[in-house]
């Protein structure tokens, strides 16, 4: 094997060391389990073919962006297949990840409901920040925008979550108070 080939393989392996597991988590948060392996494969193939463009200092956001687009293309293909066989169904949007509905009985109903109240772009922003633990400049790479825009949108999204939780808690406290009043009524 030529030296250049060996170098390329070594470089790919070094990128894989960094991104292999995070990419599985990223996809696991946004895709059905059955699709994760296939989209991971697609993503790794793109990374292999475009290895020259993978940032050497911080490859992960770039690779998340690859996965994002591979997932979007995967979903489009799947949706088109469904349409072709006349089974048009409401499929999750490209960036829609797993957010359980509060009715599922999670322990964090208030926060979950607040998340569900966000629109999908804001929710994706929150996921990248809280779950992928990315900084605004890294999120900007994934979403193909500017760090400033990310910072502003992120702050607004967090404010919406806090407001929603406050509102839910106030409503809950009001109901509690009302209930107590009735219990102690003679």
């Amino acid at each position, binding site marked *: 094997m030529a030296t250049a080939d060996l170098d390329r393989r070594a470089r*790919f392996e070094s990128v894989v060391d960094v991104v292999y597991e995070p990419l*599985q988590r990223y996809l696991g948060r946004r895709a059905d389990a059955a699709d994760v392996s296939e989209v991971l494969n697609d993503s*790794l193939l793109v990374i292999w073919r*475009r290895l020259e463009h993978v940032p050497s200092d911080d490859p992960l956001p770039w690779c998340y962006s690859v996965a994002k687009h591979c997932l979007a293309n995967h979903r489009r293909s799947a949706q088109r297949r469904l349409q072709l066989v006349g089974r048009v169904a409401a499929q999750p949007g490209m960036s829609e990840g797993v957010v359980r509905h509060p009715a599922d009985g999670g322990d964090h109903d208030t926060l979950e409901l607040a998340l569900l109240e966000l629109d999908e772009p804001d929710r994706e922003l929150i996921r990248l*920040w809280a779950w992928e633990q990315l900084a605004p400049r890294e999120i900007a*790479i994934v979403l193909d*925008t500017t760090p400033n825009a990310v910072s502003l949108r992120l702050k607004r999204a967090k404010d919406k979550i806090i407001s929603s939780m406050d509102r839910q808690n106030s409503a809950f406290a009001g109901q509690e108070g009302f209930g107590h009043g009735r219990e102690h009524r003679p």
Partner: protein
Amino acid sequence: MNDELREQLGRLDPMHPGVPVESAATPSSRTRLEQIMNTPLLDQPTTDPTSDQPGAIPVATRTTAEARRRRNWIVLGGAAAAAIAAIGSAVIIGDFGGGGANQVASGPPLELSLGDSNVMSSCIMFDVAILADMSPAFAGTATSVEGSSVTLTVDRWYTGGDADTVVLQGSSGTPALIDGFEFVVGQQYLVTAADGIVNFCGYSGPATPELTAAFDAAFPG
């Protein structure tokens, strides 16, 4: 507030660090990675390191000036381009301007112009290496054609966007054309644009096997 909120959100993470994922060192991972590393590499132009990003990768890193520079030597649409396409190719000229960078919003339909049919334009020879420098680039199926406006449902993004729908807007009062062809509902098209204006001269058109092969070569992966 930040740390506390992040921590609370972390508890909702379906793939939190406690959920096992496959290591790159397992036999099945090694098989997967070996298969990928044995995949033949396609020839790719390397003149612009941001050009052949996967999907919409950092289009934002391109400057408007860069986008405009590319636009200068590509093509313009409408009747002029149709005429030029009919007689072959030539050399390009002229700054057609165009506003805004070729960035694409997520979610809402992307709007692209089919150009001004009254503007003169010229073509350069079709080259996959030049095609690979185009962003956005996508395959889409026409779902409606209304006068000068065409709506495409995106089948595949090659680069530069993630919208599900793209609206192509031609000159008011004239039928929408793509490289001289009228749009047909149900027909698939391959489209590139720069500065928000669709490129012609073979860089966009009905999805013939030849053009599809060129797009696949230009945008591997």
